[in-house]
C-alpha cells in the first residue's frame, strides 16, 4: 500500500498502478466472492467491511464494474440454487419454515452485500441502467426459488391447504403464513397476485360455493345468515392477520357472491324462516344480520325491501278489509298504529334506519290505508275516543305521542277533506256536550293539522273554539244584565255558533216547553240588543238539559237528557200518560229523532224513566207511554243516553259523502281558475295533473270530476275551448 502513496505528476500515479497487475481484477473478485459466500454462511464477522468496500470500490473505479456485476449475479444465482435445493428437500410441514428461514437469511445477506457494493450501486448501476443490487437480489429470489418448478406449485398448494385447514377449524401458524405472503408481496406485488392471490380466490370460491349449497339445504334462514356472517368475519380477520390488505375486497367479494348473492332469493323466500317470518316474529337480530349481509350485495337490499313491502301491503290489506275489524273503529286504528310501531322498530333496530326502507314502509301504509274508504272516518273516531275519555289521567307527553301517531296515519290519507268533515262533526259534538278531556290536547292537534295542511284546513275548527269562548262571555254578560229577574226560572246556557263553522244540520226547531221558551226569548232579546244585524236560530237537536225528578217513593234524581228528551219528559209534568201521537203533536220533533229519544227513555234497561205499552224493543206509532214511578237507581245523577249509532248509518254515510263531494267542487274549480289565470292556455291533461298536484295535500281529485268542473267553468264563461285545438282551454279574464 505504501507504494501507492508516492505521488508525483506522472501518468501512472497513485492507484493507477493496481491496474498494471493483469490479474488484479480476478484476485479482487475472488476476495469479494469469498466474502459473499461467507455472508451467506453467516460468517460475516470474520470479514472487514472496510476492506471489502475498498476492494469493490477499486474494481468499479478501474472499470471492472461489469465484471463485478456479472460476478455478483452469478454468485447470487448459485447460492439461490443451493437454497432452492435445500428448500425442495424439506419434508412436509417444515417446507414453509425452511423457506421462511432462508428468506430471512437471504434478505439479511442481501442488505450486507448491498452495503459492501454501495459504490457500484451509486455510480456504475445508474450509469449503465442495470438493476440495483437490492432489486436484483429479489428478482433472482423470485426466479430461482419461487418460480422454481419444484417449489412453485408446492408453495401454492401448501399455502392453500393451510388456509383450508384453518377454515375447517384447525389452528395454523399464522406468523409463518404472514411472513411467506409478505415475502411474495416484497418480491413483487405481481408475484403475490399470480402465485397466491388468484388461486386463493378461485379455491375460496369453490369452497364457499359447496359450503353454501350444503348449508342452505339443511339450515333455516337465520342459521344460514349466522354462518355466512361468521365466514365473512373470518375472512376479514384472515386478511388482517396474514394477507395483503388489498386482498380483503377480493375475498369478501367471493364470500358475498357465493354465500349471499347466489342464494339470496331462496333465503328471503324460505318458508317458515324467511324474511316474512322474521318480520312477523320480530326477529331483530336475524333481520339486522340479513340487512348487513345483503347490503354488501348489489341487489340485496332491493330484494329485502320489495319482499317487506309486499308483506306489509298484504297484511295491511287484510287488516283494513276484514269486516270483523270494521265493527270497532278504535280497535281498527289501534291495530294500524301497532302495525306501524312494529315496523318502525324493525327498521330502526335491524335496518339501520335506512331511508329507503322507511320510504317503502310509508308507501305501503299509504297504499292500504286508502284501500278502505272509511279510514278517514275511523281515524277521526279514534281521535274522538281518545279525546273523550281515552286520555284521562295520561301525562301530557303521552298525549302528544298518541296525537303524533295519529297525525302519522293522517299523513297517509289521500282524502284529507273527508277526515276534516268527520273531525268537524266529532269535534262539534265534543265541544257542545262539554266532553272534551283536555283543551290543550284539542288545540295541540289542531296546531298539528295546521302545520300539516295549512291555515285553511283548520280555520273553521279554530272558529269553533272561538265560538265556545265568546259564548261563555256572552252568558256571563246575560246573567249580569238580567240579574235577579231569572232567579227562579230554569238556568239557560246558550252556545252561539257561527253558521258555516259548525257542521249544522238544518233542522226544524221543536216546540220547547213554555218554561224554557220564556228564558230563551229573554236571551234572544238580550243578544240581539248587543249585536245588531244578526239572526239567531235554535238548534234544539244539539242541546241537553238537567232535570230534577221526584219518583214514586219520594226518590229524587237528577236526569241528564238531551233537549228533545227534556221536551218529552216535560209533557209528563201534566199527565202520567201520553200516546206517541200526542207527544209528536206537542213537541214536533222529527220522527226518527223522536223514535230514538223515546227508545232511550223507555227501552234502555236501568234508564227506563218511561214505561211503554206494549212492552217491546221498537217504538210503534200506536204506543202509549207512562211515567215510570218505580224507577230506581243507585246514583243521584242519571244520564239518559240517546241511542245513537256511533258510526254512521248507511244513509248518513252517503250523505256525508255527498257533502264532501259537494265541498270539493268549489275547491277544484278554484284550483282550475288559479292555474288558468297563471297559464292562460293549457291542454286538458296538464290541467288535470296540475290540479291533482295542488289538491294532493287535501284529497285526490277524480279526473272525471275535474272534467265536469272544467265544463261547468266553460258554461259560466271562465274558460273557453280553443277554436282549433279542442283539447286546449283558454282563460277568459
Amino acid at each position: 500500500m505504501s507504494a501507492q502513496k508516492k505521488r508525483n505528476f506522472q501518468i501512472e500515479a497513485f492507484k493507477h498502478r493496481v491496474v498494471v497487475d493483469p490479474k488484479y481484477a480476478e484476485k479482487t473478485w475472488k476476495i469479494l466472492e469469498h466474502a459473499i459466500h461467507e455472508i451467506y454462511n453467516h460468517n460475516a464477522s470474520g470479514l472487514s467491511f472496510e476492506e471489502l468496500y475498498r476492494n469493490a470500490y477499486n474494481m468499479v473505479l478501474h472499470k471492472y464494474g461489469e465484471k463485478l456485476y456479472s460476478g455478483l449475479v452469478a454468485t447470487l444465482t448459485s447460492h439461490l440454487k443451493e437454497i432452492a435445493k435445500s428448500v425442495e428437500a424439506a419434508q412436509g410441514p417444515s417446507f414453509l419454515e425452511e423457506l421462511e428461514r432462508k428468506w430471512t437469511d437471504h434478505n439479511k445477506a442481501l442488505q450486507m452485500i448491498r452495503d459492501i457494493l454501495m459504490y457500484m450501486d451509486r455510480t456504475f448501476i445508474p450509469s449503465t441502467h442495470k438493476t440495483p443490487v437490492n432489486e436484483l437480489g429479489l428478482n433472482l429470489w423470485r426466479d430461482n426459488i419461487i418460480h422454481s418448478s419444484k417449489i412453485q406449485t408446492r408453495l401454492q398448494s401448501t399455502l392453500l391447504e393451510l388456509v383450508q385447514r384453518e377454515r375447517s377449524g384447525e389452528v395454523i401458524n399464522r406468523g409463518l403464513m404472514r411472513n411467506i405472503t409478505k415475502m411474495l408481496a416484497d418480491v413483487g406485488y405481481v408475484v403475490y397476485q399470480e402465485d397466491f392471490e388468484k388461486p386463493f380466490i378461485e379455491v375460496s370460491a369453490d369452497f364457499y360455493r359447496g359450503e353454501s349449497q350444503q348449508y342452505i339445504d339443511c339450515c333455516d334462514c337465520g342459521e344460514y345468515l349466522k354462518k355466512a356472517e361468521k365466514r365473512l368475519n373470518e375472512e376479514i380477520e384472515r386478511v388482517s392477520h396474514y394477507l395483503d390488505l388489498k386482498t380483503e375486497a377480493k375475498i369478501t367479494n367471493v364470500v358475498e357472491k357465493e354465500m349471499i348473492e347466489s342464494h339470496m332469493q331462496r333465503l328471503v323466500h324460505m318458508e317458515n324462516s324467511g324474511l316474512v317470518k322474521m318480520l312477523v316474529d320480530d326477529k331483530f337480530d336475524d333481520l339486522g344480520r340479513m340487512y348487513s349481509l345483503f347490503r354488501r350485495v348489489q341487489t340485496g337490499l332491493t330484494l329485502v325491501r320489495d319482499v317487506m313491502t309486499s308483506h306489509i301491503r298484504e297484511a295491511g290489506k287484510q287488516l283494513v278489509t276484514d269486516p270483523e275489524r270494521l265493527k270497532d273503529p278504535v280497535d281498527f286504528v289501534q291495530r294500524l298504529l301497532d302495525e306501524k310501531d312494529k315496523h318502525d322498530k324493525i327498521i330502526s333496530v335491524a335496518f339501520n334506519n335506512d331511508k329507503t326502507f322507511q320510504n317503502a314502509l310509508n308507501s305501503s301504509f299509504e297504499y292500504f290505508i286508502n284501500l278502505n274508504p272509511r279510514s278517514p272516518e275511523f281515524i277521526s273516531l279514534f281521535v274522538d275516543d281518545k279525546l273523550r275519555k281515552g286520555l284521562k289521567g295520561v301525562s301530557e307527553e303521552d298525549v302528544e305521542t298518541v296525537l303524533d301517531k295519529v297525525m302519522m296515519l293522517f299523513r297517509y290519507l289521500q282524502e284529507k277533506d273527508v277526515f276534516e268533515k268527520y273531525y268537524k262533526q266529532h269535534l262539534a259534538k265534543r265541544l257542545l256536550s262539554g266532553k272534551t278531556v283536555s283543551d290543550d290536547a284539542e288545540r295541540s292537534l289542531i296546531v298539528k293539522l295546521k302545520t300539516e295542511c295549512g291555515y285553511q284546513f283548520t280555520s273553521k275548527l279554530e272558529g269553533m273554539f272561538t265560538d265556545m269562548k265568546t259564548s261563555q262571555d256572552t252568558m256571563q254578560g246575560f246573567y249580569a244584565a238580567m240579574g235577579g229577574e231569572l232567579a227562579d226560572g230554569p238556568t239557560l246556557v246558550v252556545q252561539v255558533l257561527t253558521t258555516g263553522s259548525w257542521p249544522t244540520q238544518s233542522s226544524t226547531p221543536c216546540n220547547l216547553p213554555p218554561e224554557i221558551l220564556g228564558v230563551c226569548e229573554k236571551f234572544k232579546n238580550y243578544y240581539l240588543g248587543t249585536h245588531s244585524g244578526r239572526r239567531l236560530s235554535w238548534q234544539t237537536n244539539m242541546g241537553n238539559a238537567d232535570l230534577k225528578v221526584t219518583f214514586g217513593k219520594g226518590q229524587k234524581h237528577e236526569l241528564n237528557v238531551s233537549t228533545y228528551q227534556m221536551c218529552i219528559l216535560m209533557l209528563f209534568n201534566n199527565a202520567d200518560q201520553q200516546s206517541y201521537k200526542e207527544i209528536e203533536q206537542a213537541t214536533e220533533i222529527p220522527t226518527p229523532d223522536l223514535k230514538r229519544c223515546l227508545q232511550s227513555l223507555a227501552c234502555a234497561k236501568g234508564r227506563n224513566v218511561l214505561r211503554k205499552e206494549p212492552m217491546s224493543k221498537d217504538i210503534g206509532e200506536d204506543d202509549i207511554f207512562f211515567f215510570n214511578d218505580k224507577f230506581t237507581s243507585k246514583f243521584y245523577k242519571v244520564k239518559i243516553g240517546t241511542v245513537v249509532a256511533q258510526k254512521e248509518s248507511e244513509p248518513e254515510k252517503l250523505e256525508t259523502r255527498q257533502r264532501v263531494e259537494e265541498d270539493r267542487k268549489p275547491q277544484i274549480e278554484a284550483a282550475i281558475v288559479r292555474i288558468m289565470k297563471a297559464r292562460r292556455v293549457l291542454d286538458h291533461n296538464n290541467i288535470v295533473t296540475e290540479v291533482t298536484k295542488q289538491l294532493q295535500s287535501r284529497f285526490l281529485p277524480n279526473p272525471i270530476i275535474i272534467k265536469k268542473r272544467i265544463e261547468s267553468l266553460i258554461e259560466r264563461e271562465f274558460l273557453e275551448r280553443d277554436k282549433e285545438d279542442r283539447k286546449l282551454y283558454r282563460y277568459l279574464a
Partner: protein
Amino acid sequence: MSDLDNIALDPSDFSACLPLKKVPHGDVFEASRAGDVTRLKHLIDRGINVNSRDQWDSCALYYACLAGHLEAARMLLEHGAICDEHTFDGDRCHYAALNLKVRKLLKAFEARPPPLGPLQGALRDVFLGCVANSGNLDHLNALSNPAGNSFDGGPCSTYFKPDVVFYVQGRSIEAHRVILSARSPFFKKKFETDWKDRTEIRLSREKLSYSALYCLIHFFYSDRLEIAVDEMEDLVRICKVCRCESLKRVLEKELSHQKYAEYKALGDVDNSQKRFIMQGLSLPEEDRLPAALQRILEVSLANSTEEQNVNSINGLSSQVTSMQMSFEEDLADICIKVDKKLFRCHQVVLASRSEYFKARLSRMKDFLEGKGGLPDFTLPFLEEHDLSIEAFEKMIEYMYTDTLKDIDPDQAEEMFDAASRYLLFPLKRAVADVLLPHLEMAPPAELCHWLMLADMYGVLKIREYCLDIMAYNFETFADSQEFRALLLTLPPPSGDSSLRTTVPSAPGAEATMDGGNILDDLREKWLEAEAAELDKRDESALIFDKRLEMLMIVAKREKSVNHNGDN
C-alpha cells in the same frame, strides 16, 4: 390559482427580450431591479445575504418580481431567497409580481424543498428522519428529499439514531448532543454537567413552548428558521436561555417589524398563519452552522492523537482511555484510525454526510470490526486504510463545514479518491473548484493526467475543462509524448458514425457527458473548436479519426522503444 396552471415556463422566458442595463457597481437590490444577472451572480458568489432588506423594507427578490426579471428571480430563489406566501417578504413578492409567469415561478419554488447547502440539507434530513420529529410540520415532511428515500425503499433511509430526547408539553423531540452543543453554549454546558449521562430530558417549565423549541432545534440542524409569527416571542425567550444572541437579535428586530407588517396578496391572512423564515445567511458568519461545527471539529482535532507505535492493541486501548479521561467536552462518539492517527469524530455528522459511513456505522456488529473488542474502550472504533492523514483531515473538515480551505493541488488527486470512495460527491466539485485555477498554468502532460483522473472519478468539471483545452490546442497535445501514451490506455472511439451527434451539443448540456467515451467527446469538442460547416462534419470527423490512428501508431512504437530501453 387555476390560471397559473395554464402557464408554462419555457427556457426562452428567462432571457430578457430587451437588452438590460448593466449595473457594474450596484448592490444586490439595484442588480435585481435592473435584472443584471452577471452582477447578481458575482454578488451571490461573494456570499451576500439575499434576504436582507433595504431602507424601504424591500428585499432583492421583491425588486426582481416587481420588474419581472425571471432569470434574476430564479437565481435569487435558488440561493435561498424566501418566497413563502405566508411570510412578509414572500407576500410582498407574490403581490408585486409583474405577471403570471413570475407568480408561477414563485409558486414553483414555494413547493420545492428549501435550497440548502449540502451540509445543512443532510443534517436537516437526519433531524426529520428521527421518528419523533417527523410527525411535526407536515409541509416540511412532504418536502423532505424524496430521492433519499427511494433507494432503501423505507422512510428510515435518512434516519440516524439520536442520542437525546426532549419531552416538552407531552411531545418529544429527538436530537443529537453534538449539534445542540455546537450551536448553543447553554446546551453545551448542560451536556457537560447536569445532562451528562441522561438520554431523556423532561422539560416542564410552563412557558416553554414545544413548537418554538422544535423550530429552534430544526434551525440548529438546518440553519433555516421557519416559525409562526405567533411563536416568535416564545422563541426569543428560549434564545435568551440558550444564549443564541445573534438569532435573538434578528428575532427581536423582526418582531417589531411584524407589528406593522401588512399582508396583501392573500387578503385576510390569519395571524396564526403568518410565518417568519430566516436563512442562516442573515446571521453573522460565526453563528452559522458550518462555523459552529468548525469549532467542534477544531476541538476534536486537537484531541486526536498521533502516536508512533500503535501497533499493539493494548497500547492503542490505553491511549484511547487516557484520551477519554482528559477530553470529554468534544462529545465525540467514534474513533477513526487513519494511518497512525486516531481521529475523534461524531457519528451523526459522518453518517449524515456519507452513505458509506452510515452503512459502516450501522453495520458495526455484522463484520469483523465489531468483534475487534478493545477492552475498556467505550467509544466505537473504526480503521480506514489506504488513505493519508492529511486527506482524511481535509475530508472531515469538508464534512463538518462544507468548505475547503487552502488545498494543495498535490492533494487534489487523493481528495478525488476519498470523495468517490466515501460517496461525498459535492466534495469533488469543491476540490475541482480549487483545482481549476491551478490547471490554467499546467503543461500538457499534467492535463493528460488530470483528464484521466477526472474521467475515472467522474469529475465532470475537470474533464470538461481538459477536453476543451485539448480540442483547442490539439496539435500541441499531439506533439507531446504523454498524450500519445494516454491514447493507448483509452478505449478506442466508436467507429460507428451514427453514434456521433451531428448537432453540436448545446452549451451546458451535461447529459451527454455522463460516462461517455473520452475520445468521442474529444472529437466532438474538436469539431466544435474547428468550427467546421455542419454538412462537412462527417468528413472532418473522419479526418480526426485518421489523425488519432496515426498518433496511436506512433505511441505504440514509442512504447516498445521505451520498453526495450528499460530492459
